C-alpha cells in the first residue's frame, strides 16, 4: 500500500514537472516560453505605485517579445502576482516557486515585500531581481540570489545633502555650515531609513539640524508638524512622505502660513501626478529627489520617448510616476542578461549580471549598470527634480538636467 502510494506520488511529481517544462519539450513549431514571477502589491494601500511599477516591467517584456523575444526567439511571460503585504509576499513567492516552478522573480516596489519574498527565493536558490524597493538592507544582507538595479535609500539622502552643500547654499547666499536643516518624515521603515541617513550625512557634512519631526503615515492632521517646523525656522526642509500625508502637509502648510526657502521631497508622494493634481499651482518650486521622471535631457536617456509612447498606447494615459520607467529600465537589463545566458538559470544569470556593464547616459533612465558583490547596482542614482509649471523637471546632475533650478521658493503671501 505504502509503496503504491509513493509510486503514485512520484508519478504525480514527475507529471507536474513535465507539465511545467512541457512548452520546452513540446511541439517543434511552438515558441519556447520563459516564465518570470512578477511580485507587486496590486491591492491594498500600496496598490497605486505597485501597479505603476508593474506596468514598467510588463512593457519591457511586451516590447522584447514584439522584437523577437530573447535568446533566439524565446518568449518571456510574466506571472503577475499580487502581494499586498509581507505575509502575502512570502506565501506568493513560495507558491510561484513550488507550484509554478519559476526560477526567477522580479518585483516589487515595496521594501517590506522585497525582504519577505527574497527570504523565500534565497532559500530555494531562485534569483530575486529587484527593480524598485529602496531599503539598503535588501542588498546589504549579502544574499547570493538578490540583484537590484535601482539605487538604495541611502543614495537619496546622500544626493540631498550633496545638493544642499553644492547648490542650495550658494543659491541662498549662505555658508553650508550656517544652513539650518529640518526633516519631516513619516515614521514607517521608508521614512525612518531616509531620515537616519539624512542625519548621518548632514552631520558628516557639518550641516546644522534644526528639527526632526516624525509622524504617523495614517495621520489625518499634521498641524502640529507644521507648527513645530514653523517654530524651528529651517532654511531647508527635507520631507519623506507618501502621497496622502504629502498632500495634507502642503495644504496645512499653506493654511498655517509655513514658509520655507527650500523644500526637498524624497520621492514617494512628492513625485506623483496626483500630488500635483491635488495642490495645483502650489507645487511649483518644490524640489524632489527621486528616480528619473519624464522631463529630462533626452540625449542622456535614449529609449525614454519610445517607452512613453508605448505606455500611452497600452494604457491610454500618461505614466503616473517614474516608477514604471525605473522598472522598465531594470527589466530591460534583466532581459539582456537572459538573452546572453539563453535560459533561466539563477547561477548563470547572476554570473552574467556581474559581468554586465553599461555606462551612465545609455539607458532609458540614464543609469549605468555595474553590480557590486552584493548585487547592488553602483551606477544608478536618483536625480534632483523641481516642480516647474506643474511638471517635475530634472535640475541636477548636469548631464541629465533639462532646466535650471529656481530658489528660494516664493512665500505664500507673494504667490497669486
Amino acid at each position, binding site marked *: 500500500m505504502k509503496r503504491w502510494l509513493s509510486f503514485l506520488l512520484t508519478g504525480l511529481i514527475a507529471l507536474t514537472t513535465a507539465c511545467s517544462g512541457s512548452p520546452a519539450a513540446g511541439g517543434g513549431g511552438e515558441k519556447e516560453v520563459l516564465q518570470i514571477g512578477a511580485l507587486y502589491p496590486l491591492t491594498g494601500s500600496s496598490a*497605486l505605485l505597485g501597479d505603476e511599477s508593474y506596468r514598467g516591467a510588463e512593457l519591457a517584456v511586451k516590447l522584447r517579445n514584439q522584437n523577437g523575444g530573447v535568446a533566439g526567439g524565446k518568449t518571456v511571460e510574466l506571472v503577475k502576482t499580487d502581494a499586498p503585504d509581507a505575509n502575502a509576499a512570502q506565501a506568493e513567492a513560495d507558491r510561484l516557486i513550488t507550484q509554478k516552478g519559476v526560477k526567477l522573480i522580479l518585483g516589487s516596489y515595496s521594501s517590506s515585500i522585497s525582504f519577505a519574498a527574497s527570504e523565500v527565493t534565497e532559500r530555494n536558490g531562485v534569483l530575486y531581481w529587484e527593480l524598485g524597493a529602496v531599503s539598503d538592507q535588501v542588498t546589504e544582507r549579502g544574499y547570493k540570489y538578490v540583484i537590484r538595479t535601482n539605487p538604495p535609500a541611502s543614495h537619496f539622502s546622500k544626493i540631498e545633502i550633496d545638493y544642499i552643500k553644492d547648490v542650495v547654499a550658494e543659491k541662498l547666499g549662505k555658508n553650508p555650515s550656517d544652513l539650518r536643516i529640518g526633516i519631516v518624515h513619516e515614521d514607517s521603515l521608508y521614512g525612518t531609513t531616509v531620515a537616519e541617513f539624512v542625519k548621518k550625512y548632514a552631520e558628516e557634512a557639518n550641516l546644522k539640524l534644526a528639527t526632526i519631526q516624525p509622524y*504617523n503615515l495614517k495621520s489625518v492632521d499634521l*498641524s*502640529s508638524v507644521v507648527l513645530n517646523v514653523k517654530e524651528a525656522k529651517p532654511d531647508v526642509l527635507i520631507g519623506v512622505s507618501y502621497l496622502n500625508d504629502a498632500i495634507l502637509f502642503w495644504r496645512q502648510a499653506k493654511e498655517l502660513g509655513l514658509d520655507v526657502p527650500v523644500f526637498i521631497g524624497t520621492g514617494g508622494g512628492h513625485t506623483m501626478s496626483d500630488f500635483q*493634481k491635488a495642490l495645483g499651482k502650489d507645487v511649483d518650486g518644490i524640489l524632489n529627489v527621486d528616480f528619473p521622471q519624464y522631463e529630462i535631457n533626452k540625449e542622456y536617456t535614449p529609449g525614454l520617448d519610445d517607452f512613453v509612447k508605448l505606455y500611452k498606447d497600452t494604457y491610454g494615459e500618461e505614466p503616473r510616476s517614474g516608477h514604471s520607467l525605473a522598472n522598465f529600465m531594470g527589466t530591460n537589463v534583466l532581459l539582456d542578461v537572459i538573452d546572453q545566458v539563453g535560459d533561466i538559470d539563477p547561477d548563470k544569470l547572476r554570473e552574467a549580471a556581474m559581468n554586465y556593464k553599461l555606462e551612465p547616459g545609455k539607458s532609458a533612465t540614464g543609469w549605468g549598470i555595474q553590480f557590486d558583490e552584493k548585487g547592488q547596482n553602483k551606477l544608478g542614482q536618483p536625480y534632483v527634480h523641481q516642480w516647474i509649471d506643474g511638471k517635475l523637471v530634472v535640475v541636477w546632475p548636469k548631464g541629465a538636467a533639462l532646466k535650471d533650478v529656481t530658489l528660494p521658493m516664493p512665500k505664500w503671501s507673494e504667490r497669486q
Partner: protein
Amino acid sequence: MTQFAQVVISGILVGGIYALISMGLNLILGVVRIINFAHGEFLMIAMYISFLLYSTWGLDPYVSAPIVALALFVFGWLVHRVIIQPILDTSATVKIFATLGLSITLQNFALMMWNADYRTVQTAYQTTVIRMGEVAVSVPRLIAFLVAVLISLGLFLFLKYTLTGKAIRAVAMEKRAAALAGIPVKRIYLLAFGIGSGLVGLAGSLLMPIYYVFPTVGTLFVLTAFVVVVLGGMGSMFGAFLGGLLIGLVEALAGVWISPGLKEAVYFAIFILVLLFRPSGLFSLGKGSEEVGLK
C-alpha cells in the same frame, strides 16, 4: 502663546471632523448594537459619490452634500435589510465577520471601479483661511466643525422630542420592552442604520474639500471613530461630539508638546485609562453599554 492658540484651534477643528464621522457610527452601534467594521468604507463610498458628482457635473461637494447623504441613507438601508437583518439574532462573531467582510468587499469594489488613484476636488475655498492675528482658521475645516455642532444638536433634539426619536431611544435602551409597547423594532433598526449611514455620507461630502479619496481612505478614519465612540459613550450623541473634540485636541497638543510621531500613542493611553476606570465611556447611557455589539 499664538502657537498654543493655533494648536488648540487646529485640534478642535480636526476634532470636529472626528465627531462628524463618529456620530453615524455611534447611532448604529448604540441602537442596532452592531459593530459596523465597514463604517470607514461607507465614508469612502460617500467620498467617491461626492467626487463623481463633482467630476461629472461639476457639483461643489457642499452643494451635493444632501444628495450624497440621501444616497448613503438608501445604501445603509439596503445593507441593513440585506446583510444585517438576517443575522441580527446570531452570535457576535457572525456579525463581526459579516461587516468585516463587507468592508473588504467594498474596498476591493472601489479598487476595481476607480483604481488606486488619489482623487481630489479643486475648489476656490479649499485652502482659504480666516486670520485672527497670527492664528489661522481653515474655512473648510471650520464648516465641517460647524456642521458637526449642528448635527449633534439636531440629533439630540430629534431623539429627545420626536416620536420616532423616542422610539429609537426606546429600542436602544430595551428592545424587548419596546417591541411589547408596539414599537416596530425592525423598522427602527432600518431607520437608525439608514440615518447613521446618511450622517457618514454628509461627513464624506464635507471631507472632500479637505482630504482626498482612494479605496482604503476609510481605514485612516475608522479606528479613531471607534475610539471616539467608545470614549464618548455608546449611544450618546454629545458623547461622540465631545469625544471627537477631546481626541482632536489631545492629538494636537501631544504633537507639539511631545512629538507628532507619538500623538496616537498619547490618545490611546488615555483611551486605555478610560476603559479601565469608566468602561462604558465618559458620557455613557448607563451600565452595560460597554458590551454593545458583543451580546
